[in-house]
């Protein structure tokens, strides 16, 4: 810590930051553009000019760029100095010379950093009387809209896109006044993080295209803190809604997880909420046809079903903890299924067990960024957990940071550190069956069948800790690779081993855990991370239940009379033959879901559930962090939260049919969580993931609209001119209107939008942090269920290595090993109901090792019949394997599996 004097006032500050950060942390309003907490400083925009004085006697001082000047002991600076003010005013006047008169028709207006900074600088009249430079725009695909005239050339976009996210199809072109940021030619931005340009760009050059179609100003939207439901990483988001429809998803800062960046699937995957596939009324089969029925009719029908025989409940790994638990309470533990196949369930439960037993560290995404040796074992993290992949991408920079530290270059001095880093070797090692997007930055990649990779993993564990079981019959090449990787990992101070469930291989996860545990003997910081498939996979693994196979056995035995399926499309888990069996043997299937999935066609009763933006609930991410999402939309009846539906069903029952004592009395989400804590002590802390519904600041609820939300007295007047009270819910501490408390110090889990006086853009975030890039002022969001304390206890017990090492993969004649080709856009269920994601996903192809395809279309024989697929050669894919897009070819896709592959007979006719 050190002290600097800003305009005559002393402020304690950190010594490893720059003056701009120090000024912002001190609460000063200093305009800036090119600096970004995650991107560092380049001094491109010249906007943050301040005056620095060499000592108390120095009256003249000199103008410096705050973002390029490190904090020095007792530095004396002035922001208010007239010369510095004039300087900043001239800079912004120059920037605005070519800026079009667009604000009324610009999607950034009202939350524009350029507007904020222009007002802050005091520039309000254009003196420039000459013509403005213009640019042609590009079509950048379904996510991002391009309007180049608004550019101020701060270079944030290319620095984010190329340097930070690793993209290569956005660049700066031309020179001086004409500088242009775009692609070489029109086309979709290919990087998985292109949507962040919307938030990174301080002006309206890059705006959110799906949001533009339903555009509303920031001040008019209700915000709610939420959690992304499109993968298991659990990125924090803000959902924005107006007129009870979801408008957009924004990034919400969580210092441990997503920080400033969200992947495109998370940002644009919310479209399923407003899609025509939404279920909005109960549906019941009457005379063989599904027809909308009133809620009372549906409840009577269910009560009738429940009296007839056994009720079995199938939960889902994409449903909230509360929904799953209420179903558990309704049907009882013996009849509760997790809705996963045995393979999925065993893998998820194994992941939980391995993380709990791991003697080292369980790093957060932010901690992964500082890992100095990373080994990825059989998981394409860029597709299954994109934000985690981005963190691993950042870990590659660790070496450059150490070099910079040695050279006494501050880490935020971006250009210099990157120049130094160009010489540094990568610290990322990837062993996967198929090539991944991270391969380009990896020091070493190796592609083999999942079992072979697991064997390599076990061998590495043995190399590190000789007490781990050895692997025999390694080829000399593999042995050398194992020795090399073990050496690298042992030399690291913060090694990290990552794997996951993508290939459904228990051996891969065991091997990963063995390496991490072996490393943890000598390096306590050795990290383990396992990627799970769905947003609540971990929560469900902690609850446990029957697998789908067990349910199928019971169904075939005729023991199930009614099946309640909550937010689960069983056709994605069960083969068509099994689904047909289930429909044939179970008389009543009740589906409670928000989207019309193929399973709904078979349901005798369908109930409309609230989607994530319309209810409150808790999700447990893959690292065991319970996080609460809140509703931004108050859906019209009969749509309601999952646990409320199940409670409604229970209330309609005759008490003698099902013993559902506790369930009926729950009044709010907090009561559900309290009951959950009693039933599942391991999940008890989930109640503390966010403050409860009775949380108040100064006796007030928290407002979820800005103070300047408009249209209060008219927005509903086409329905009724009488004013209605704003909707309310006992589950949240939020008021649904603009009334209530809002301050930068409010709990981190309850930040519903970022706005502070003079800061209307997302850059207002710096007012919510004590230290920029540090934790939120109001404390962390979410709570870790797998606490480090638990790990300390297990450290006393020695880690027992599994001896269950798989045999090497031996190719068989006439069949290939089909592996899932998980895709960022296309493999995930809900996001594929979102129009922009649908547009972005590409047609399924069959990936085969290069030079092995005999024709350009081949027929793959899966359980549900033959599929003709265009062949895409995948260089590096191991021999006798094929990559088939998960859930896109066969809807239920179990893997790894052997399948017959043959030439497509109609080949000659096609051309």
């Amino acid at each position, binding site marked *: 810590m050190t002290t600097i004097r800003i305009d005559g006032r002393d402020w304690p500050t950190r010594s490893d930051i720059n003056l701009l950060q120090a000024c912002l942390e001190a609460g000063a309003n200093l305009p800036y553009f090119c600096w970004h907490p995650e991107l560092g400083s380049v001094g491109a925009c010249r906007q943050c000019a301040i005056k620095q004085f060499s000592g108390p006697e120095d009256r003249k001082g000199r103008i410096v760029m705050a973002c390029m000047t490190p904090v020095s002991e007792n530095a004396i600076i002035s922001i208010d100095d007239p010369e510095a003010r004039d300087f900043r005013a001239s800079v912004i006047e120059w920037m605005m010379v070519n800026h*079009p008169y*667009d604000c009324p028709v610009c999607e950034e207006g009202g939350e524009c950093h350029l507007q904020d900074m222009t007002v802050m600088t005091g520039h309000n009249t254009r003196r420039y009387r000459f013509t403005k430079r213009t640019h042609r725009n590009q079509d950048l695909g379904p996510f991002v809209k391009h309007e180049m005239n608004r550019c101020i050339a701060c270079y944030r976009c290319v620095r984010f896109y190329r340097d930070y996210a690793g993209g290569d199809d956005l660049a700066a072109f031309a020179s001086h006044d004409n500088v242009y940021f775009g692609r070489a030619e029109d086309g979709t931005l290919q990087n998985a993080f292109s949507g962040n340009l919307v938030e990174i760009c301080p002006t309206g050059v890059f705006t959110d295209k799906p949001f533009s179609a339903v555009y509303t100003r920031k001040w008019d939207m209700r915000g709610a803190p939420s959690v992304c439901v499109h993968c298991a990483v659990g990125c924090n988001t803000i959902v924005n809604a107006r007129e009870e429809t979801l408008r957009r998803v924004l990034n919400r800062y969580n210092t441990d997880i997503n920080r400033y960046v969200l992947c495109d699937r998370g940002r644009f995957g919310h479209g399923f909420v407003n899609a025509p596939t939404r279920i909005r009324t109960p549906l019941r089969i009457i005379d063989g046809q599904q027809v909308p029925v009133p809620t009372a009719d549906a409840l009577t029908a269910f009560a009738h079903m429940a009296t007839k025989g056994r009720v079995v409940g199938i939960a889902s790994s994409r449903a909230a903890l509360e929904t799953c638990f209420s179903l558990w309470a309704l049907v009882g533990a013996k009849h509760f299924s997790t809705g996963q196949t045995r393979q999925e369930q065993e893998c998820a439960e194994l992941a939980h067990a391995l993380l709990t037993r791991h003697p080292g560290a369980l790093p957060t995404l932010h901690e992964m960024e500082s890992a100095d040796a990373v080994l990825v074992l059989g998981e394409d993290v860029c597709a299954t957990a994109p934000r985690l992949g981005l963190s691993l991408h950042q870990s590659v920079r660790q070496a450059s940071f150490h070099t910079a530290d040695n050279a006494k270059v501050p880490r935020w001095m971006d250009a210099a550190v990157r120049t130094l880093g160009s010489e540094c070797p990568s610290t990322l090692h990837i062993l996967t069956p198929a090539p991944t997007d991270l391969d380009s930055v990896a020091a070493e990649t190796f592609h083999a069948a999942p079992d072979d990779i697991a064997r390599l993993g076990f061998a590495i564990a043995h190399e590190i800790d000789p007490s781990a079981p050895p692997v025999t019959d390694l080829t000399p090449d593999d042995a050398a690779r194992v020795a090399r990787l073990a050496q690298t990992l042992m030399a690291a101070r913060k090694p990290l081993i990552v794997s996951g469930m993508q290939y459904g291989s228990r051996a891969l996860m065991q091997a990963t855990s063995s390496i991490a545990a072996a490393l943890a003997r000598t390096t306590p910081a050795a990290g383990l991370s396992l990627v799970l498939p769905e947003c609540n996979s971990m929560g469900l693994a902690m609850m446990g239940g029957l697998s789908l196979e067990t349910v199928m056995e019971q169904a075939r035995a005729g023991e199930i009379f009614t099946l309640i399926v909550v937010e689960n499309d069983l056709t994605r888990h069960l083969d068509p033959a099994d689904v047909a069996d289930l429909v044939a043997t179970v008389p009543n299937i009740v589906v409670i879901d928000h989207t019309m999935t193929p399973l709904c066609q078979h349901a005798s009763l369908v109930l409309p559930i609230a989607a994530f933006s319309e209810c409150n609930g808790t999700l447990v991410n893959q690292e065991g962090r319970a996080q609460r999402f809140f509703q931004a939309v108050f859906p019209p009846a009969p749509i309601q939260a999952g646990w409320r539906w199940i409670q409604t069903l229970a209330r309609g029952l005759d008490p003698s049919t099902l013993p559902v004592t506790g369930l009926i009395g729950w009044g709010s989400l907090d009561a559900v969580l309290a009951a959950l804590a009693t039933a599942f002590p391991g999940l008890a802390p989930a109640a503390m993931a966010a403050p409860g519904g009775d949380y108040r600041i100064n006796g007030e609820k928290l407002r979820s609209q800005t103070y300047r939300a408009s249209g209060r007295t008219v927005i509903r*007047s086409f329905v009724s001119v009488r004013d209605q009270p704003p909707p309310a819910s006992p589950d949240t501490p939020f008021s649904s209107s603009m009334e209530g408390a809002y301050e930068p110090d409010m709990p981190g889990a309850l930040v519903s939008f970022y706005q502070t006086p003079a800061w209307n853009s997302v850059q207002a975030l710096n007012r919510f942090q004590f230290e920029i890039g540090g934790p939120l002022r109001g404390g962390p969001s979410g709570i870790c269920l797998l606490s480090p304390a638990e790990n300390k206890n297990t450290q006393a017990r020695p880690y027992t290595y599994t001896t269950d090492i798989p045999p090497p993969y031996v190719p068989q004649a006439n069949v290939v090993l089909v592996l899932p080709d998980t895709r960022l856009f296309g493999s995930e269920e809900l996001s594929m109901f979102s129009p922009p994601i649908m547009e972005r996903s590409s047609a399924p192809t069959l990936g085969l090792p290069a030079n092995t395809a005999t024709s350009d279309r081949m027929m793959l024989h899966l359980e549900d019949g033959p599929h003709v697929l265009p062949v895409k050669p995948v260089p590096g894919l191991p021999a006798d394997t094929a990559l088939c897009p998960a859930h896109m070819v066969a809807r239920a896709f179990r893997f790894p599996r052997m399948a017959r592959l043959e030439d497509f007979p109609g080949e000659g006719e096609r051309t």
Partner: protein
Amino acid sequence: MFNTLRTLLLTALHAFHRRATVQYPEQQPYLPPRYRGRIILSRDPDGMERCVACNLCAVACPVDCISLQKTETDGRWYPEYFRINFSRCIFCGFCEEACPTYAIQLTPDFEMGEYARPNLVYEKEDLLISGTGKYPDYSFYNVAGIPIPGKARGASERERPPVDLHSLLP
């Protein structure tokens, strides 16, 4: 005594003054063009809707009686709906001041009495007039940077044609 007589005289003299009472509605008062009465939405000189759905009128409205939703055709922004609840409107004219396109204007018409409040909820078709209102020559899209049908990029007032990025000239 004198004061009483004086008062009577003065009162009697008023009988010969000009009458202040206006025989409304037979006799209409003069209202200046900038009188703040019923709100209308005007059109461009070329007959297109002026409102670009920027929401500034709605946010300026102190009684929150304006609501609208943006939609877009060929680059031009429009309100999908535009609703004013005149039973709440206080005719302050802030919306007119906030409007960057002169679309929303207050007119010298105040005769808006209704028996039922729902009749005071005006939709876009009730508000939109066919003329330019008080500002006959102004068209927002002539000065804004975005292209619309009939106006190419770089063809707005005080704009240069688009930069040729393939040119090597400085």
